[in-house]
């Protein structure tokens, strides 16, 4: 049984580790911050991978090596070793808290400062079960929204309850696709109208809950053009699995052209 156990544990360890590295599981990354996040992942992955393999291989070895042979000899009588306890306590503390120290600046860079003043403003609103994106237009100001005006069945500005009486709302544009210019920082304002949703763009390594009652500011910068999927990552009701959208990153000129066309449609 000792040998069988060794083989089972080692095989599980080998196969599990193999499939981690045999395929690139992560989606292609296109945001400015993604390389830092991915790097921290790799660092943690190597550290935890070594510990995982070492611990499982040791476990398999120990159960096989110290199996009962049925002889008269007794097991070793030991209640432990304080020096060893201290050694592995210090080593694991260094490993875990060290990783934490290395990773913390990445989080700080992501979330401790607000977007540049030059960043492009986009409001992201989640409602059961769609994402809406609002652009403030030339005045760079979002018009007022009023819940009593909301009518999701009409879509667009009405779905968000944008108050057309507010002058700032006149040039607001609402889209079901998140159009973004490449290489420009985006200042996101996340809102939710009914329940909690979570704005998840795997290619951007970006996720943030949109919470009813809160206006959450986040920022990111896409660095490659293309279509990327947006998913909802917080359980929001029966349509949660199909609450998705598209982030379309285009060149600066194409973006201006698109926005101008949308403004023209409104007039």
């Amino acid at each position, binding site marked *: 049984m000792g040998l069988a156990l060794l083989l*089972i544990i080692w095989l599980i360890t080998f196969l599990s580790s193999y*499939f981690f590295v045999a395929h690139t599981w992560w989606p292609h990354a296109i945001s400015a911050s993604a390389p830092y*996040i991915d790097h921290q992942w790799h660092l*943690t992955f190597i550290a935890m991978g070594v510990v995982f393999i070492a611990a499982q291989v040791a476990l398999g070895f120990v*159960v096989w090596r110290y199996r009962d042979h049925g002889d008269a000899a007794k097991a070793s009588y030991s209640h432990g070793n304080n020096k060893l306890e201290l050694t592995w306590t210090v080593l694991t503390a260094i490993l875990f808290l060290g*990783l*934490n120290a290395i990773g913390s600046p990445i989080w700080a860079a992501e979330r401790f400062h607000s977007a540049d003043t030059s960043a492009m403003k986009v409001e992201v609103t989640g409602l059961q079960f769609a994402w809406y994106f609002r652009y403030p237009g030339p005045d760079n100001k979002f018009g007022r929204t009023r819940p009593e005006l909301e009518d999701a069945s009409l879509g667009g500005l009405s779905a968000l309850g944008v108050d057309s009486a507010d002058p700032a709302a006149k040039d607001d544009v609402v889209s079901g696709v998140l159009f973004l210019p490449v290489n420009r920082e985006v200042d996101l304002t996340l809102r939710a109208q009914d329940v909690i949703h979570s704005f*998840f763009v795997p290619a951007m*390594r970006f996720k943030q809950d949109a919470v009813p009652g809160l206006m959450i500011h986040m920022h990111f910068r896409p660095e490659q053009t293309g279509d990327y999927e947006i998913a909802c990552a917080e359980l929001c009701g*029966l349509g949660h699995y199909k609450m998705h959208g598209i982030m379309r990153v285009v060149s600066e000129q194409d973006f201006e052209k698109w926005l101008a066309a949308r403004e023209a449609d409104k007039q």
Partner: protein
Amino acid sequence: MTQAHGPADAAPATVHGHAPTGFIRKYVFSLDHKVIGIQYYFLALTAVCIGMILSLAMRIHMVWPDASIPFFGAIKPEQYLTLMTMHGTIMVFFVLTTAPQSGFGNYFLPIQIGAPDMAFPTLNMLSFWTTFLSFAVMISAFFVAGGAPLSGWTNYPTLSAIPMAGPGEGLGEDLWLISIALFCVASMMGALNFITTTLDLRAKGMTLMRMPLTCWSWFITAILGLLAFGVLLAGGILLLMDRNLGTSFFVPGGLVVSGVPVQHSGGSPLLWQHLFWFFGHPEVYIAILPGMGVASQLLSTFSRKPIFGYRAMVYAMMAIGILGFMVWGHHMFMSGMSPYSAFAFSFMTMAIGVPSAIKTFNWLGTMWKGKIRFTVPMLFAIGFVSLFVSGGLSGPFLAQPAIDIPLHDTYFVVAHFHLIMGVAAIFGIFAATYYWFPKMYGRMMNDALGKIHFVMTFVGAYCIFMPMHYLGMAGNPRRYSQFTEVKYLAPLIPIHKFITYAAIITVSAQLLFLFNFFWSMKKGKKAAQNPWEATTLEWTTATPPPHDNFGGVTPVVYHGAYEYSVPGAEKDYIMQTDPTPVPAH
């Protein structure tokens, strides 16, 4: 450590003068901690069968959305969420909290410390029947109009606060909250009993530092339960008030749900998350600590070696218990709470890895140079260590907020918590069952069936949960009923199919356990009083133990719980009640 005080003669002896003879007082409204322990165990066994069937239905629906499943029919997306919510709730509360602590703890804590019963037998009975009522209310949610809730076991408002937000968020949700509130009350009653019993009813000579590690784990778990369940109870009552009395603790103003304006203002959905996870994270340790105790007990017993670093094991459990109350915010890195607080929560969470690592090292150290007997309980204890390592090591990824950004709410998290608080804890329950079955029923469970059950469950669990890490890295969100709408998920469906096949086989293997359990009760080989040659007090008394546990004798304890392979001793184990001196250490 001070000498134990209040030995058995201070115990409620009047209650235990003689055993009740009527069926109702003996088996239904029993005051005997052993009967109550078995009642809890069977409640958990019923719950785990339901929880597992729900998970199978979910797994089948995810990969064959149109399949018609016996009892369930073709599952709709909202029904999937209901199954998921009830699976999580039933497993966390009525299995992982109930079996290891209330079940085995009730049966064996008093015996292992040499007490005739729990400190408060009537309270003990009351806490079981309150748990039973809570379970009945929870199951009834399936059968009311709108069905059971779909807001997940974490039950975040505003989804859970507004009846229009989804099917099942009407009466079903109220029943869910009432059930959880009852469960909290029952758990606090149980916790008080465990704490008092441990502190006051230890036999002469049973100092705290001579207690088996199982008793330490039940004791620390009880403290966590007492502190954590009160907070969930408060949260549950506030949410019930939001739903039924027009308060707004969790619901802000200006919401429109299904086209209808919501008449609330001023609340915060994040408040619930703080209250919930202040309970929810210690709850993880409530589920796993008794498993750690059982693993320690068994690894020492079947390696025929003293536990490596007994004191370090006790201190590590205490550290896990204390730190466990300071890490709840790591569930909320993406919630919109202050990004600065993520620093503190991340630091504390990484720190909790240290005592967890100490325990793993000490388990390996216990087996090192041992004489390992591959009994079925030992196999499950070894499996526990392997799963604890595998499930534990994904923690430091999720504990770092920067890495948590892409991984939060994906299958990576599902893999992490299932391996560690699901499967590892269940392995603790299996280990305990195979280990103590002979004491509880006087018969051995079948060895060959047990070994097949172990191999299939061990390999099966890895086949189910290891691939979920890959899904999480690929960005597969959890709680999705289908993977066809979001395009990048479609290529991952074959992995989901593999997981579903593995789940079907692994769940089927549990029938071996059920068969073995009930068959061995009646037909198993008769068990000796101490079949495993273990040292703790339950093996000094008759099998099954008499009503007052020790047949009128008060045990006296002379040394710690793990005196195996003492040089010069006649046998390779010295019972705790054996006055033979052991070397100082």
